[in-house]
């Protein structure tokens, strides 16, 4: 059995990337996720698996290195925090437009602008609604534990390969910085050139015996063809919506109220719910694990049997819009948020529930 280790979420990401068999990591340091690059540099995977670890000259350079690696069928990733992820948006849109698989980690800090280095979830809109230009979506995974930080590296890259689309791990600064127990995924060798050619027949791996050249581009000057490309992207997104929605429910069976929260905040809410249940308040939790695709149907079905919902987020109210769309006006949906790096404690969550639903004693 694998040893149980104690480490930060950011460190777990680095270990998991090496063990997955990533071919390359390209990044630029920024708090609160610098431990990803630091841990990779410390572990020196180029000496063992041959994985490239490169500190680029900027976030923009790093995402374009990812584009290059992905275009040749390699398993590649980058990581940053909010302001750095904003810089990467052009490259992310190009990855989506060129149908390239890649993994992007955003360990969110408070914004806008340089903001603060303290935890936040204010990049929900950016991650789930397309932070770059054009009609595209990322697969967005929201880890709540250090274990999930480790697990979502492999899951994210697998999904990215499966659908030929970039995936993002959208973590808050808390789960990046906190230490918990983790069992790291098993070591897998990096894929050979033959395996890459087989898995990614579209990749720019050299013409070889093929009759045609594989061209990787997001550019299409013929409008009719570009519309066809867009239709193809949308069909992919529809497939993802159908197959990849992930969420967890806690105490929802007899719940009269539902809290919806993602990432570490869901854990704070779970503690609040445990406390509330001791006081006889029937409240449950739905934690979206995929923020895109969003668990719309699960929320719609809950809306048919509860009195109201409250989203708790480290922002001014972003995911609440998706919850309201899912609920479609059938029950009231409120939002409670802290911003700027402030984190609510379980007591505050319970107070917010009572403030929004005064009938709760």
């Amino acid at each position, binding site marked *: 059995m694998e040893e149980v280790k104690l480490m930060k979420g950011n460190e777990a990401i680095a270990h998991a990337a090496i063990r997955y068999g990533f071919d390359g990591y390209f990044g630029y340091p920024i708090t609160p996720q610098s431990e990803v690059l630091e841990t990779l540099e410390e572990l020196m995977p180029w000496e063992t698996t041959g994985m490239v670890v490169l500190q680029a000259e900027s976030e923009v350079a790093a995402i374009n290195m990812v584009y290059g690696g992905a275009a040749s069928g390699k398993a590649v990733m980058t990581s940053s925090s909010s302001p750095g992820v904003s810089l990467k948006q052009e490259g992310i849109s190009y990855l989506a437009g060129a149908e390239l698989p890649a993994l992007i980690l955003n360990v969110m800090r408070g914004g806008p602008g340089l903001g603060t280095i303290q935890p936040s979830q204010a990049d929900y809109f950016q991650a789930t609604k397309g932070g770059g230009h054009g009609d595209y979506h990322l697969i967005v995974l929201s880890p709540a534990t250090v274990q999930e930080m480790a697990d979502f590296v492999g899951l994210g890259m697998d999904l990215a390969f499966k659908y030929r689309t970039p995936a993002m791990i959208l973590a808050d600064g808390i789960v990046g910085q*906190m230490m918990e127990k983790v069992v790291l995924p098993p070591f897998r060798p990096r894929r050979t050139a033959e395996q890459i050619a087989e898995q990614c027949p579209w990749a720019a791996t050299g013409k070889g015996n093929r009759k045609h050249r594989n061209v990787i581009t997001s550019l299409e000057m013929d409008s009719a063809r570009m519309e066809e490309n867009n239709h193809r992207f949308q069909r992919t997104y529809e497939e993802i919506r159908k197959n990849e929605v992930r969420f967890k429910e806690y105490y929802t069976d007899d719940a009269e109220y539902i809290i919806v929260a993602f990432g570490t905040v869901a854990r704070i809410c779970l503690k609040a719910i445990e406390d509330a249940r001791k006081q006889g308040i029937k409240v449950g939790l739905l934690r979206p694990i995929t923020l895109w695709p969003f668990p719309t149907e699960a929320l719609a079905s809950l809306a048919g049997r509860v009195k109201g919902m409250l989203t708790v987020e480290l922002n001014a109210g972003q995911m609440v819009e998706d919850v309201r769309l899912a609920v479609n006006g059938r029950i009231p949906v409120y939002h409670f948020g802290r911003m700027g790096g402030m984190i609510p404690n379980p007591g505050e969550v319970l107070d917010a529930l009572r403030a929004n639903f005064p009938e709760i004693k």
Partner: protein
Amino acid sequence: MKEEIIIAGFGGQGVLSMGKILAYAGLMHDLEVTWMPAYGPEQRGGTANVTVILSDSSISSPIVDSYDTAVILNQQSLDKFERKVKPGGTLLYDPYGIHHAPTRTDINIVPVEAMLKSVELKNAKTYNMILLGALLAKRPIVPVEAVIKGLRKTLPERHHHLIPLNEQAIEAGMKLVE
């Protein structure tokens, strides 16, 4: 068993590393563990704190409303966290640099002269281990052997010759509050 602990003081006093050693000791003792730092500018001379939770069942929130035990190393942290200790809980503090001692009567208040002791031991860096010793004497959440194992895990090997010194500091801390 579940112990929710806050350790708070100035950056540089070894607050985060004391929490880390405690967390590793919990890991060695087969407990569930979360270590949640208030990091950032705090590390550069301001106040720093870390929440460590040790539990024999799974831990939902790494952030809590109140604490079973607080280890307080400066006035700002005392002002902030004295009221957040659960009734019946324990507050250990180093009186060095404290102008207004804690006043609550519903918690166990334990002064630990750790700064003076570290001077006596002629090694300021033993400061946090003296406090850890005092904490374990008052709240034996994990055995000292687990702490030593934790030290082995957290210290790079080139520093392993310092482990006996740390053990002495833990013992000195335990004696301080006997």
